[in-house]
């Protein structure tokens, strides 16, 4: 990973220090005033739009977006996640919420114009199915972007490796090796190395995984997963083919 500009580091340090002061917090609390008891979530809360109608709307929106994506996107770009600048709360992007907040209880009648607070808190639908994920990805791909993807080919290769981990870790490792050969110091070198450690563990090649973990710590000492890796390295080593890998946190 490239060394960061000192100027950026200084600006970020200042930004990190700018947490709200106690008197600002107190002023905000006073502004909120007495809050009514929060509604108790209920699975049977009545809504003005029935679940069947909601499903139909979601399905129709999804179908329209898939169509739009297929019409507008070159085939090759569908595999590369593109930076999007559209707000993440489009009806479609909410379909891919795997660990997003649970739905807020709906009022008995839905107002014509929901308040901003309601809008912000409106929760995504339940965990997505694969078709819905494709819709979300298509919507992401057609979202307009101001900045070009920094390293599309590099990212695509690593994404393919990531996607192959479960079905074929050996294939994933081969793609990771390709990435290391083509982009030894690329923008995603850190993520590649973290991925390689996980895949090696998955394949039971613990000795190699440990060597790679040590190299990772030496190369990326500030990565957020370093302490987890160090803890793993400190733990008593078990023999190769005997350690069922639990994925280590990635940076």
């Amino acid at each position, binding site marked *: 990973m490239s060394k*960061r*500009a000192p*100027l*950026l580091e200084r*600006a*970020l340090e*200042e*930004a*990190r*220090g*700018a*947490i*709200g*002061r106690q008197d*600002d*917090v107190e002023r*905000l*609390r006073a502004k*909120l005033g007495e*809050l009514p008891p*929060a*509604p108790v*979530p209920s699975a049977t809360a009545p809504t003005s739009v029935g679940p069947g109608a909601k499903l139909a709307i979601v399905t129709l929106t999804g179908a329209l977006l898939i169509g739009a994506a297929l019409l507008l996107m070159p085939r090759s770009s569908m595999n590369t*996640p593109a*930076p*999007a*600048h*559209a*707000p*993440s*709360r489009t009806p479609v*992007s*909410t379909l*891919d919420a795997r*660990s*997003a*907040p*649970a739905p*807020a*209880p709906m009022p008995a009648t839905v107002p014509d114009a929901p308040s*901003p*607070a*309601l*809008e*912000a*808190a409106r*929760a995504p639908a339940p965990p997505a199915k694969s078709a819905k994920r494709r819709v979300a*990805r298509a919507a992401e791909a057609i979202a307009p972007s*101001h*900045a070009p993807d*920094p*390293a599309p080919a590099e*990212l695509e290769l690593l994404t393919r490796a*990531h996607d192959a981990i479960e079905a074929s870790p050996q294939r994933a490792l081969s793609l990771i090796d390709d990435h290391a050969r083509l982009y030894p110091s690329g*923008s*995603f070198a850190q*993520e590649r190395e973290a991925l390689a450690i996980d895949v090696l563990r998955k394949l039971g090649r613990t000795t190699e995984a440990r060597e790679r973990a040590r190299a990772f710590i030496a190369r990326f000492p500030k990565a*957020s997963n370093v302490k987890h890796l160090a803890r793993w390295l400190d733990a008593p080593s078990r023999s190769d083919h005997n350690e069922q890998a639990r994925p280590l*946190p990635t*940076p």
Partner: protein
Amino acid sequence: MREVPEADAALGPSHDFEVVFRDMAPYVLRVLPRMGVRPADLDDVAQEVFLAVHKSLPSFEGRSQLRTWVYGICIRTCSNYRRRAYHKHEQITDAPVQAAAASAGPERRAQTQQALGALDRVLEALPIAQRSVFVLHEIEGLEMTEIASALECSKFTAYSRLYAARKHVERALRVLVPEGGP
């Protein structure tokens, strides 16, 4: 050392709004300005965030970390805020807030203001999706997995946005702030 909220560690399975508010409010007040909320609107937008938190807290199921969930609400609220400002044709750049600098000396305060001002101007030029990832990772200290969860995108999409944002910010800061300053 970056200060991060302890919401999840401090709370049990049922979340009390007052505890969540006390734990998260300083960080909500930190993140909103970096997401483009101008000082004059900060209280209103923060209020919006916590009204949304209050409304939805009972149905928070813990599928993500609480702080991730609150940050997600912040980002969506900021998106709405920016959209509203856009429709009103408002320019939403402004002088940066001086929360951290208030207790420092005048010189330090001026440096802080200059650095934050430059950073905010640079961030203002970023698409909201890239800005969100950059701010949540570089300033709020969220891990990329959490960010992907908060923004409802894949981890690799989050990474690509982060790298695009970093590249833009580094380049633009060099232009905006001459060598030696702040």
